[in-house]
């Protein structure tokens, strides 16, 4: 059995680079899987030979290596996962090096909930509201995960909740919330405040 040289995934990846690397890693892995299947052996030690089960499941692997299972139907909410499923790259665990286990678990929970049938709009809205009723840092992590996995409903929900949360804040509070450094000189700050004075009244 050939061993793949896994590329070193650095901490400071941008979303698109991480996605591209993951996809390319994926394609290589799936090629190995289809080659091995012909020899009737599999790459991954954790899964057994593929059974013919009715519910297809996708396995996701967090940045710390923890695995989470998600039904294919729920995974389709993520355009990224949908593309992988379409290209038959989703038969082995999909590594998501940018997403921590704690966050990935919740994202899976979100997708499962939104794939459920027979939930009325009102209770789904209430569930969504509870979902984002968490610390800011967690909501920010949800946003990054939803952006990476391309889950439009989760991205809309989380962006709106951040917008609602910051609506009435002062610039100083915004700097604190997003850990931003002002970088204005005192004169520049004075000028921009003057130009927008009416917004502070």
């Amino acid at each position, binding site marked *: 059995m050939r061993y793949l040289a896994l590329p070193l995934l650095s901490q400071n990846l941008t979303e698109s680079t991480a996605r591209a690397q993951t996809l390319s890693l994926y394609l290589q892995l799936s090629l190995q899987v289809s080659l091995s299947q012909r020899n009737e052996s599999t790459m991954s030690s954790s899964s057994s030979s593929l059974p013919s089960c009715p519910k297809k499941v996708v396995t996701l692997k967090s940045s710390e290596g923890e695995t989470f299972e998600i039904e294919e139907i729920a995974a389709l909410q993520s355009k990224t996962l949908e593309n992988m499923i379409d290209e038959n790259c989703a038969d082995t665990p999909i590594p998501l090096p940018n997403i921590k286990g704690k966050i990935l678990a919740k994202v899976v929970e979100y997708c499962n909930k939104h794939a459920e049938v027979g939930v009325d709009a009102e209770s789904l809205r209430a569930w969504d509201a509870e979902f984002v009723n968490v610390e800011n840092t967690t909501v920010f*992590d949800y946003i*990054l995960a939803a952006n990476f996995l391309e889950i439009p409903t989760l991205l809309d929900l989380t962006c709106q909740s951040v917008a609602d949360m910051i*609506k009435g804040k*002062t*610039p100083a509070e915004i*700097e604190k919330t997003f850990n931003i450094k002002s*970088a*204005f000189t005192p004169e520049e700050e004075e000028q*921009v405040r003057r130009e927008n004075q009416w*917004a502070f009244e």
Partner: protein
Amino acid sequence: MASFPNDITTDILSQLPVKSVARFRCVCKSWKSLLTGACFINAHFDRSSKYRTVSLLKYDDNNSSRIGVYRPHHRELSHLNPSSGHPSRYNVVDSCNGILCLSVYYKDKPGLPDIFLWNPSIHECMVVPQHHCRVSGLIAFGFNPLSGHLDDFKVVNINFNFGARTDCHSSRAQIYSLRSNSWKKIGNVFSSWLGRNLGHQVIFQNFICWGTHARVNGQIVASLVSFDMVEEVFREMALPDSMPSEEKFITLFEGCLSLIVQNPSSQCYEVWTMKEFGVTESWAKLYTTTVLMDGFLQCWPLGAASSGEVLFVKSFYCELRLSLTSYVVSYDTRRREFEEFKVGVEAYCSSRLVNYTESLVSVVTRD
């Protein structure tokens, strides 16, 4: 800490009201740059038009003009504050992309009004430079949606010369562009007998539209006049024979070009809508109201609010005070009854209803 890509930051911040956005320009240099850029202003306006469109009611009271936000099921208006450099008494030509076009006529300078472009959301007001021709009262306002710039505003001025004989009518139009800050002539217009009764304008897609009628040889002839902001030409559109030929008031009803029409036989107003723009046969009567045109209470339509109610000005002559008292009232076309809303105004002719969407579009800073 989370550092979002720009498109996510734009996604979040474009949901905020204008006041918050202006405040957040003071957060840091990169936010200032993002929040003053044309790309963000467009994204923000897109969202604004979906969720934050209201109706503004302009009226005169005690010799000064006021503008209030009309909200359905509310008894009163919440008023807009004037900005500095803002005239105290004016007419509202129309509203477009968050900008209101105002005209002010002065007794000592007849025929030379001041024209203002005002963004009440960001408190910016500018005066359109004077042009040398006399104005006979028609100023039109719109923007070119195909140029890709939200601030590609145009002000059209039409001069009519009414000769003594009917064949001496002529007209000339000139157009001002904010982006080039200059006027230019656009030549002859249309049979100017139509110009006598153009009334208020409405902006629909890339057209400025007016409903008009005139008595020609004892017959009432009515049509729709439009000015194409892209091709800068005027066109006339016939109205269907099935529509009563009395006076018509143009408005936008549920996003479609509509006319509030007087039906002489029932003495009530009707709401007609053109389902397909430019197609005369697509005019259809949507509602018959129970609002009487005449009688003890004079009743004139201002137009439809963005929430669907039709606003009217009801006037009655008060014998005690020997004066005409007027109120703006709101009529629900589905429930066929008046709402509790009532605002005292000076007169019908100085009242105006326009749809408004708040925006960050600047008329002052040019890039």
